[in-house]
């Protein structure tokens, strides 16, 4: 008797171990095709769950678009998978696209990554060009998401037309012009004129304040108005002979070497704090940054901030949404992507999140939130940004655009700005870094 119980106990333990092992392995297997298991095609009358993968805040949920769409289409359920950091989101998405599994039905693509997506992942996305009226988007926006053979892999969501947000009260204290139209006139056409205003500001700057948050932000803003960046039309790297880069670099070097910068890094915690403490007087602000400034400055900044047109029409940021061919519900996903990026919906997102539409027909009906308008001293925000948006040049992006940009702004410029290196030394450091990036 005793033997048999011992034996059976052991057998039971064995069985338990085996069950546990297979259970765990099965768990892994189930995980890998998550998202497709909870529905079957959608045609059978059951609910279809569409997943949409985004980074940061897209505003669709905030503007109530998902709820609205689900109400109109009762057989659709929408689930948003948000990854906060772009540098985490994109590698993950790239590997899933290539594995052909695990992608969401709709996948967001940031403008800095869109060239890489167009050039290397073109066959992993559905061609959306046939399903939409492409003329409703700004030409340069659609061009960025179009492959050489004319395939449109993503529909434009928002764009980032640039303006200059400035602290009216600080400008007044420094004895500068405070009227947004006259101010824009002063620096119109060239970012180096904006830097000149900065020099004037520093002569009588209120204690503890600087003219601009960082040299890198000036570089970024100036480069955003150049059509030629790091790559030419044929996809060759030209960062070291690009006229656009040179102009932007020179403007940023003037800032870095003349003590007018608060030497912060954008989107770092201390940068956030500086908004609350009024550490700097201006920041080049794409439309989507307005909400951020408002949030970080808090009520103390209300009515003190104003918006003036930027020296050149420039773009910073903006995204696309594409439908991966690996998705299980392509038809429904295309329909949703089309709806989300239509002018009416883009206008709604602007009303909530200040993400600027990439469809010009939406501009006439844009209504910013009342709180935002009062916060920015009743500046005609929609007017300023739509004027900029219509004249932004088509920018050429390349595969390694992001890492090259990081090398210049976070290595080259930062060394000059924060470590007191000369511009030449900064450029050399950036060169070395870029060569490492490009594997040269």
């Amino acid at each position, binding site marked *: 008797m*005793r*033997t*048999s119980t011992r*034996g059976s106990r*052991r*057998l039971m*333990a*064995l069985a338990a*171990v*085996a069950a*546990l*092992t297979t259970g*765990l*392995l099965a768990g892994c297997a189930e995980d890998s095709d998550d998202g497709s298991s909870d529905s079957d095609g959608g045609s059978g009358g059951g609910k279809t769950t569409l997943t949409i993968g985004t980074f940061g805040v897209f505003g669709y949920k905030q503007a109530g678009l998902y709820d609205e769409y689900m109400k109109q289409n009762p057989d659709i359920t929408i689930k948003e998978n948000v990854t906060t950091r772009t*540098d985490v989101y994109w*590698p993950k998405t*790239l*590997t899933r696209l*290539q594995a052909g599994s695990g992608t969401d039905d709709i996948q967001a693509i940031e403008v800095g990554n869109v060239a*890489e997506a167009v050039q*290397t*992942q073109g066959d992993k996305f559905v061609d959306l060009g046939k399903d939409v009226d492409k003329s409703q988007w700004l030409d340069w926006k659609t061009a960025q998401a179009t492959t050489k053979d004319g395939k449109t892999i993503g529909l434009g969501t928002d764009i980032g037309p640039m303006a200059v947000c400035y602290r009216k009260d600080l400008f007044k204290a420094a004895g500068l012009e405070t009227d947004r139209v006259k101010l824009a006139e002063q620096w119109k056409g060239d970012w180096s004129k904006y830097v000149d205003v900065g020099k004037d500001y520093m002569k009588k700057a209120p204690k503890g304040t600087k003219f601009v948050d960082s040299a890198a932000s000036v570089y970024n803003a100036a480069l955003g108005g150049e059509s030629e960046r790091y790559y030419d039309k044929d996809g060759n790297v030209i960062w070291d002979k690009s006229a656009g880069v040179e102009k932007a670099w020179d403007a940023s070097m003037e800032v870095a070497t003349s003590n007018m910068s*608060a*030497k*912060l*890094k*954008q*989107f*770092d*915690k*201390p940068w956030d*704090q*500086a908004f609350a*403490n009024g*550490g700097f007087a201006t920041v080049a602000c794409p439309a989507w940054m307005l909400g951020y400034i408002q949030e970080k400055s808090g009520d103390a900044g209300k009515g003190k901030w104003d918006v003036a047109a930027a020296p050149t029409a420039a773009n910073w940021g903006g995204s696309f949404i594409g439908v991966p061919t690996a998705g299980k519900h392509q038809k429904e996903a295309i329909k949703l992507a089309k709806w989300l990026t239509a002018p009416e919906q883009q206008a709604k997102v602007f009303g909530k999140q200040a993400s600027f539409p990439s469809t010009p027909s939406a501009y006439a009906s844009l209504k910013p939130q009342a709180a935002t308008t009062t916060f920015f001293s009743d500046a005609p925000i929609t007017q300023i940004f739509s004027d900029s948006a219509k004249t932004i040049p088509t920018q050429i992006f390349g*595969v*390694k655009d*992001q*890492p090259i940009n*990081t090398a210049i702004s*976070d*290595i080259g410029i*930062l*060394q000059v700005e*924060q*470590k007191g290196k000369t511009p030449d030394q900064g450029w050399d*450091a950036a060169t*070395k870094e870029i060569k*490492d*990036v490009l*594997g040269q």
Partner: protein
Amino acid sequence: MTSSKQALARTAPSADAAPGSQPGAARRAHGRGTPPPGPGSWRSRLYRWDMKASPYAFVAPFFIFFGAFGLIPLLYTAWYSLHNVQLSNLDQQTWVGLDNYKNLMSSDFFWGALQNTFTIGVISTVPQLLMAIGIAHLLNYKLRGSTLWRVVMLTPYATSVAAATLVFVLLYSWDGGMINWLLHFVGVDAINWRESTWGSQFAVSSIVIWRWTGYNALIYLAAMQAIPSDLYESAALDGAGRWQQFRHVTIPMLRPTILFTVVVSTIGATQLFGEPLLFGGVSGSKGGSEHQYQTLGLYMYDQGWIIGNLGKASAIAWTMFLILLIVAAINLLITRRLRKTQ
């Protein structure tokens, strides 16, 4: 052919004979409480099979998982490291031989990262373990609310790296950070903690020290409480003071524990990643504008996931693996040496 057949023929009888010749031994192994199973019965065969197989079955889950999530990725990484593989084009892998490794050996960034890993490792591990011993010694006294103190010691370890680092970033911010504010009372100029080489390495180390000191202190405390109290009593009878007792009784008795913590901390320091990444904030994987606190882990992450050069990142991963093996070998040598002298 023939020779192997002959060999088979020669070994066959002995193999047959083996089980038959040792029934007694087998029975003894079954233990006294087990009735001898009838030879050849189903139950006895099952029983014997159970005896032989179940230990393997019990350890199998570990090996299956190690194979799936440890060994295969390890070998796959080795394979990758000999190719040019881009994150955006995983299907296209071109053989480059040892180029990735040669590239590393001639890269300033790699040597810089190696050096940073070493210096940050030393300036975080050494003070951390010294402080841990001191704290453990204090906790070993009879204290009021000793459990409370022990829990307090462990709190930093329970905090997430991200949360802790974000707080430290604010403390160390050069403009308006609390540490620079305190320094200004002593008349020290504001230090740019993130961009200066020593400043940033010190700052990163301080996060590591803050998180791990209490953890190590508790390990030491556990070891100290296992030291028999009569050792202290006889030391006291011989006229040894508190400090002498600590030096001549506590430390020697703690030696194996100290070695253990040194090994664990060294491995942890070699793999240092989260603290410097988050300390760097946006684009933290560069480890500062001059890579001044970029560790090997960060360098690998930057190459693989930011730049997208997976081949080179794999080469870094394997180099790190080899470095860890060397570290382990050195530790082993020192341990042996110490055991011999004991």
